[in-house]
């Protein structure tokens, strides 16, 4: 095993340059080091101006998503040893505007997420004295997979539909809508319906499936979207066949 590995890191400093450039850094190749450790070594010892986001370094905060050798990855969960002898290309997360170096603007997602009402919606809230909303383990299992989302945006980066059409609501937002639709405590399916059945909602998805492949938490957003397509289609059929029936 060699001592070091080369990181080819995308740099972009607005005001100083008009286009991104690539800078190479050699970092120690330690068998337990992730790409994030390599970046931290660069920032600590070689170039303190390198900008990137990270926080928990254990795959739960969703901050450190970047494009590593062309794939959207959490840099804290991507190990240098798997890319030996290198070099390792580290670029900002694809499909997002770049603010600086490896930092991208995720404002688009932050605006879309509240639009799917990702919270428990009740027609009438129970008072605190009435106690908790009870749920069986089976009922929790119905939605728990979709609750694992850490909002890391790797799915948006992998999704070609989002790349071609930034108006697409996107995998994570749609999966989170499903997380609440399938929650037995929630009564908000109607509230979420109009956005979901919009052409830029679930019907924008063509089931490429790359979002599910990229997801580090096993959320399967593609599955969430296809399930809702079936639900929405059946609901449309019902309202067509029984126009005055229950929605």
């Amino acid at each position, binding site marked *: 095993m060699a001592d070091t590995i080369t990181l080819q890191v995308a740099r972009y400093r607005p005001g100083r340059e008009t286009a991104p450039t690539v800078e190479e850094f050699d970092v120690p190749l330690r068998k337990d080091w992730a790409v994030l450790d390599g970046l931290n070594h660069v920032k600590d010892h070689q170039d303190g101006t390198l900008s990137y986001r990270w926080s928990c370094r254990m795959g739960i905060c969703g901050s450190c998503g970047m494009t590593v050798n*062309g794939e959207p990855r959490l840099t804290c969960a991507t190990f240098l040893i798997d890319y030996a002898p290198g070099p390792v290309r580290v670029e900002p997360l694809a499909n997002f505007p770049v603010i600086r170096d490896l930092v991208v603007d995720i404002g688009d997602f932050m605006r879309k997420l509240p639009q799917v009402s990702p919270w428990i919606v009740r027609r009438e809230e129970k008072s605190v004295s009435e106690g908790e909303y009870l749920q069986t383990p*089976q009922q929790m299992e119905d939605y728990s997979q979709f609750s694992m989302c850490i909002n890391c945006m790797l799915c948006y980066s992998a999704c*070609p539909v989002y*790349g*071609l059409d930034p108006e697409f609501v996107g995998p994570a937002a749609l999966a989170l809508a499903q997380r609440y639709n399938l929650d037995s405590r929630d009564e908000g399916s109607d509230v979420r319906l109009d956005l979901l059945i919009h052409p830029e909602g679930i019907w924008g998805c*063509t*089931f*490429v*499936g*790359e979002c599910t*492949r990229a997801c580090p938490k096993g959320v*399967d957003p*593609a*599955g969430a979207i*296809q*399930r809702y*397509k*079936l639900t929405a289609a059946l609901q449309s059929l019902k309202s067509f066949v029984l126009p005055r029936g229950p929605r």
Partner: protein
Amino acid sequence: MSTFWWIRRRSYAFFVLRELSAVFVAWSVVFLLLLVRALAQGESEYRAFLDWAATPWVVLLNVVTLAFLVLHAITWFNLTPAALVVRLRGRRLPPAVVAGGAYAGWVVVSAVIVGLVVTR
């Protein structure tokens, strides 16, 4: 993104091929309708149709169409469990079983058609 965004990755390219298979599904329906029409028009029309269908280009087209039809069916059945969650006695059926059900349906329908058309 360029028009050829899908060339960069194998998974994207496979996705585009999968979507393209719909064009060949449409062709197979048109071909079937042409066959039925030729049959309805009588013996000589039917023979002329069969001769046309036997020409090299049409055979090549139909072989390629068959390949795309198989791709279409297999990818569709394998993706069905993602959309269709089936519960039996409170437990969720494993995806392989749901896909298996679709394949089983394919075999049954094919057997019925073979029984009707081939073994007369």
